[in-house]
């Protein structure tokens, strides 16, 4: 039957229509539809490939950051000014808590407890199960991190926090995460804070060197990119994992010397207190030979470890001023105070330098040949200047009379300097100012440097109006920064070479090798070595000439200190505040015959509680003197005492314990001490008063004990004020007390004790050392 059918066409065969329709289906379902799907695939896989691949890779890859270690900031002696320590960020992954069925209550309780957070807050965060990363605590210290790590390990508990019988069944809490991070520490706290700056929460610099050298210090964070499955664990059977190594930041070695910086800040701080400074103080110590900055300070200071915190005084001031302010206005005020606190005055504030600028006028005059050391200037107390309606007055209204160039500088005579300015001429003067770099920023490697403000040339060069030239010649009607001034003056002192100031001397790789070294850069020679020498000699007389000099308060026994005083008024402040604001400054350098270091101190706005007469000579000069007397020996500059000077110079008491009384006497007398008495009858010295290495006035009488007990009976501190240093030492010596000097240690009848460290009438042990401050208190305000 089958055979028969196969041959014949009958009604059961497919008919023509059926074949046509099948053919139609074949074309539609077998060809057309596939072409359409092929086109669709082409769109997805070829045209939109990049888009989908990017999106897919984004969800497949988990990136873990490996934090680069931030470099260290060292001072020039490799003391650490800023360093990073590793800490941890603690976060949770609510998505994993949910996915792995961990107990959010247990986790929230545990972590809130360890981290000292509010349980309810933490619990709410665990419920946000969309999130893979919710931070709980940042920059957590090691001991806390260890507790979190222990909690995460969850030994002896299951995912719900219930105890398990067998420790093997413990379930690690995957929802608790620990991330390495680092925290910045500033071991010296507020020391040099304006120079060092600080870092923000993201560990990047926000101010100071931390900001300026952020690229160098930060390094490059590493990454681990892993392909993971949808649960966030490793993608098995594939080795897709990319490491990008973290590159640790480089360290920087600064020219800052922590010791110099300490003395600078210490004496600026005492100036703040002594003169009740309202607007702070700034100071720079520069190595004049290289332009390296040994110290730079602005007061009031802040602690970079806690850089958001305002001092109590500022808080109080905000409190006083914020009555009736809205929250926004109050916040703006706080922010303004913070900015003010972080401001590096020495670099960012501009001011009229006043008479300190006469150093530049002097150098320009000598170099240009407009004046010589033999030039004389007559001062009648005032001078008429072309373009000025009223005569220009000198500080000394009776006039300085006929003066040599050196005397004019010593007197800081404005009349003489007006003449010097005119002899130089406006164009030539501007050329020198330009050559000293005072039109430009110094380019020091720190952020926030301000520029100067000068009269336009068409005004300054006006032949019919010399008043701008006159004012400029003694440092007024233009503004510059302290940094610009000390850089220019350094050029005057160091042989005439304008150095580019710098603060980072070396960049070190993470392994300690030197990556980059800063060589001192001479920008140009502005004046000749001879002119420089002459200027130094004249400026030394400002300090050393007891009778004529205005800067004698900066004198340091044993050292040839030179410098120039300056007192200026802030005209803008007076216009806006209605009260006068004085700026007292002094720029000193030493030794005058071969200058090593320059110190500029700028004291702003002495307040109502100031008892000193206002002026650079009375206020700033003594502070510069104290700074120099502290740092010159430290910097290895050997003192050379003039005749008779050693008597009043403080000496270190040799340690003589263990020697025979006779040996001890010889040792003491060799450095200018005498032996007051030898107590007891032992063969060797068992104790001495004052102790070895203590620093007291030369000529002090030392008591030696040989097997005898030192006297412990308290004595009353005498009043030592108004005495010469020698008399003060002798008077104290009568009572078995000792003195040490500070301030103007100059052997002159007009230098007297103006302060003593221990109040008269205080009961102290015998052998106590009293620090007395010496000053020329006879001098009036010096302009």
């Amino acid at each position, binding site marked *: 039957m089958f055979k028969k059918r196969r041959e014949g066409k009958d009604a059961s065969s497919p008919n023509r229509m059926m*074949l046509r329709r*099948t053919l139609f289906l074949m074309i539609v379902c077998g060809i057309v539809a596939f072409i359409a799907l*092929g086109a669709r*695939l082409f769109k997805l896989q070829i045209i939109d490939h990049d888009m989908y691949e990017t999106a897919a890779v984004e969800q497949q890859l988990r990136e873990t950051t490996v934090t680069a270690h931030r470099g260290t900031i060292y001072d020039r002696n490799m003391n650490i000014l800023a360093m990073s320590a590793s800490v941890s960020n603690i976060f949770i992954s609510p998505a994993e808590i949910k996915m792995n069925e961990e107990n959010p209550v247990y986790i929230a309780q545990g972590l809130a407890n360890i981290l000292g957070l509010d349980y309810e807050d933490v619990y709410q965060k665990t419920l946000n199960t969309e999130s893979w990363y919710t931070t709980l605590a940042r920059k957590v210290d090691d001991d806390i991190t260890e507790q979190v790590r222990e909690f995460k390990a969850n030994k002896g508990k299951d995912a719900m926090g219930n105890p398990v019988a067998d420790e093997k069944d413990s379930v690690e809490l995957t929802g608790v995460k620990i991330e390495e991070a680092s925290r910045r520490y500033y071991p010296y706290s507020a020391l040099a804070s304006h120079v060092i700056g600080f870092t923000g929460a993201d560990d990047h610099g926000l101010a100071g060197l931390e900001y300026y050298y952020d690229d160098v210090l930060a390094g490059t964070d590493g990454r681990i990119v892993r392909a993971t499955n949808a649960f966030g664990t490793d993608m098995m059977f594939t080795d897709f994992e990319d490491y990008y190594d973290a590159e640790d930041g480089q360290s920087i070695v600064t020219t800052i010397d922590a010791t110099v910086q300490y003395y600078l800040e210490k004496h600026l701080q005492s100036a703040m207190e002594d003169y009740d400074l309202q607007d702070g103080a700034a100071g720079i110590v520069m190595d004049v030979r290289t332009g390296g900055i040994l110290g730079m300070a602005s007061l009031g200071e802040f602690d970079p470890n806690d850089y958001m915190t305002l001092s109590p005084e500022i808080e109080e001031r905000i409190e006083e001023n914020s009555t009736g302010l809205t929250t926004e206005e109050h916040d703006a005020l706080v922010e303004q105070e913070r900015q003010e606190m972080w401001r590096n005055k020495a670099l960012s504030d501009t001011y009229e330098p006043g008479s300190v600028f006469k150093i530049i006028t002097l150098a320009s005059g000598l170099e240009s040949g407009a004046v010589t050391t033999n030039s004389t200037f007559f001062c009648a107390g005032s001078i008429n200047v072309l373009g000025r309606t009223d005569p220009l007055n000198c500080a000394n209204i009776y006039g300085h009379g006929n003066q040599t160039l050196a005397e004019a500088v010593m007197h800081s005579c404005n009349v003489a300097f007006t003449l010097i300015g005119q002899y130089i001429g406006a164009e030539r003067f501007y050329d020198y100012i330009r050559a000293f770099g005072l039109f430009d920023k110094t380019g020091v490697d720190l952020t926030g440097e301000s520029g100067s403000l000068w009269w336009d040339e068409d005004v300054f060069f006006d032949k019919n109006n010399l008043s701008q030239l006159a004012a400029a010649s003694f440092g007024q009607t233009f503004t510059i920064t302290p940094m610009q001034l000390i850089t220019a003056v350094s050029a005057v002192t160091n042989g005439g070479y304008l150095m580019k100031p710098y603060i980072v001397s070396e960049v070190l790789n993470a392994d300690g090798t030197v990556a980059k070294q800063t060589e001192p850069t001479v920008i140009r020679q502005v004046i000749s070595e001879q002119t420089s020498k002459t200027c130094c000699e004249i400026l030394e007389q400002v300090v050393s000439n007891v009778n004529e000099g205005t800067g004698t308060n900066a004198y340091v026994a044993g050292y040839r200190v030179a410098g120039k005083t300056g007192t200026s008024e802030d005209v803008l402040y007076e216009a806006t505040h209605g009260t006068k604001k004085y700026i007292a400054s002094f720029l000193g350098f030493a030794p005058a015959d071969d200058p090593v270091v320059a110190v500029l101190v700028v004291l702003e706005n002495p307040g109502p509680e100031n008892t000193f007469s206002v002026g650079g000579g009375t206020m700033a000069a003594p502070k510069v003197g104290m700074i120099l007397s502290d740092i010159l020996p430290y910097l290895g500059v050997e003192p050379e005492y003039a005749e008779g000077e050693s008597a009043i110079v403080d000496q270190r008491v040799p340690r003589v314990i263990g020697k025979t009384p006779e040996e001890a006497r010889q040792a003491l007398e060799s450095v200018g001490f005498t032996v007051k008495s030898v107590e007891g009858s032992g063969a060797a010295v068992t104790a001495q008063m004052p102790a070895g290495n203590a620093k007291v006035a030369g000529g002090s009488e030392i008591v030696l004990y040989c097997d005898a007990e030192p006297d412990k009976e308290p004595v009353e501190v005498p009043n030592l004020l108004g005495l010469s240093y020698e008399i003060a030492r002798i008077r104290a010596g009568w009572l078995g007390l000792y003195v040490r000097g500070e301030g103007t240690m100059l052997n002159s009848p007009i230098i007297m004790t103006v302060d003593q460290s221990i109040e008269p009438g205080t009961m102290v042990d015998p052998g106590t050392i009293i620090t007395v401050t010496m000053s020329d208190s006879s001098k009036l305000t010096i302009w």
Partner: protein
Amino acid sequence: MASKTDAAVSYESPRLADYTSETEADRGQVDLPFALLSLLLLTVGVVMVLSASFARAYYDPSNTTGGNATYYFVRQALFALVGVGVMFLCSRFPMGFYKRISSTVMLVSLALLVLVLVPGIGEKANNARRWINLGFTTFQPSEIAKIGIIMYFALLICNNKDGLKNLKSLIPFGICLGMVFVLLVLEPHMSAIIIIAAIGLVMLFLGGLPLYWFVGGGAAAAAVLGVGYAMFGYVRDRFSAWLNPFADASDAGFQIVQSLYSIGSGGLLGLGLGNSRQKFLYLPEEHNDFIFSVVCEELGFIGAMLILALFALLIVRGYWLSMHARDRYSALVGAGITTHLAMQVLLNVAVCTNSIPCTGISLPLFSYGGTALLLQMAELGIILSLSRDIPEKR
């Protein structure tokens, strides 16, 4: 119900052995291109199941595999082996046998569709009762219903002398489809309805139903879709997810977005066999309904097009064989099965590529699923059987 004239011979030998032994010698060889294409696609499909499934099998998020990475592969490979046997066996039965059991298959299908709705027999998953658990494996009665419709409609058409020209002759088709639809709506099972509707329409189309019916049919299909859209929230969600899958990429659009990521990241040449990343639990149903997405990701545009070309060849060959079938029943069943195959392939790929709204349609010979595979192999076996009756070219 069966045709008296056609079936007269067959009725003389009702036992199975008779068909095979008596007629075997008279029949020709199976169509080699169709058989080889089927086996080639099956082999590639099983390999792809291994590649697509091992991540899920290894991580075992649903606690079924015990972490055995080859769990799904081994099972699929076993079913494939059995499937080859089933295909061979089905190619041995003469077409007359199929014609005679057509009504029975339809009745059994209906019975199973009723059974699956009985709680305790039918397994409920995702708010739908589609599966019957046999202990060692599970299967969907709707799969059997598809072949039931093909065979039964072919039989009805053969018995219908006037070529479906009058309304009365359509009544049995209507009743049959209606019953199946009602039962499927009760499960509910939208994708099965779509496939069965398509198959039913194609059968009527081949049976000679005047073309104007299809205009009405198109309207009816739109109406069905409209009703589905209105009745079932999940249908509405699927539509909006289709139009803009990225709007809700973490929920409604999740599957389709992950599928697009897989396909798109394959590019021209793909990540290489076994190197899919999306299968690491990102792509859902990666060894099932979305296995083609893994194919695209691993083998790229070239590989995917090659596999589509193989499917296209198989389908064209299926229709070609049907057109050359010796009798009308064979031609109808062959075209019906080929259409079923084409529908599954086209709709599955269309879903993977977001060309149509997402619905669960498996890719024949690729998607993991034992009983479905066995049924597919049986269907291919039937086509092979009809190919044997095609006279050699003169």
